[in-house]
């Protein structure tokens, strides 16, 4: 099984090696991501960002401008992701204090595996 997984991974790696080697060179000024205007005639985002970030938001750090202005909605999403993680930990680990104490008192004399009795009942 382990060998099979290894084989699959090696095949996948080879495919990816092939895939990245067909890409345009890193830092190639003619790569589609580094152009001024895309093949379809629309402006390329990075060119616009570099040229206009300062006049649009009076902020020299372009990353900040993109993060909090051009793509601010992504950053809102990012903050929500962190918030979601906090809330998820809250839901998974924290209980109400009172129940917690009761459960603790209940299980004090019991074995460790009995701990989450309350959770395991409805199966």
């Amino acid at each position, binding site marked *: 099984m382990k060998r099979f997984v290894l084989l699959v991974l090696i095949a996948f790696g080879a495919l990816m090696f092939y895939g990245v080697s067909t890409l345009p060179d890193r830092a190639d000024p003619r790569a589609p991501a580094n152009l001024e205007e895309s093949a379809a005639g629309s402006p390329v985002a990075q060119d616009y960002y570099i040229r206009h970030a300062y006049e*649009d938001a009076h902020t020299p750090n372009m990353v900040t401008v993109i993060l909090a202005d051009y793509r601010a909605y992504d950053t809102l999403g990012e903050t929500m992701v962190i918030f979601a993680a906090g809330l998820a930990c809250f839901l998974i680990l924290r209980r109400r204090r009172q129940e*917690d104490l009761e459960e603790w008192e209940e299980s004090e004399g019991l074995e460790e595996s009995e701990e989450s009795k309350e959770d395991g009942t409805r199966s």
Partner: protein
Amino acid sequence: MERGREGIDPMRGYYDDRIVALSSRLVVPFIQLFALYVVFHGHYSPGGGFQGGAMLAASFLLIRLSVGSDGAQLQFRKGWGTPGSSIGTLIYLVTGLSTLLLGGYFLDYSQLPLGMGESETRSMGILIVEIGVAVAVACTLTAIYDDLVGEEGRRGSPHDA
């Protein structure tokens, strides 16, 4: 893992090691100061809300690690974590919603009524939003740490070995 002295759980209870406690108490204000600098100077140098918030969280975690969670309550209470993260994110969301209500697009900072030129208003908008992010991130990461360590009501209970 090893228990602390006299069976006190070093992650939760008061953990009395003078050198560790003192040195971390000495360092923490500087970390926090730098974190604030990172937040507010994000316009001109690398940094911004998330990095600053994470550093603030790191300063809270440092105190929690060095004197134990119970001792660190004096600095940042456990109960503040979840509301703080809500409020931080709310700052962001409400900024966006207010521009929507003022007739612009969502998160269109130029609509904010700050009485400045358009690009300065955008700059201010970015700052407001970054502060929101910093508050949210600092509070949430601390809250996650607290949740992972567990409640004080469980201290010494048989099942957290």
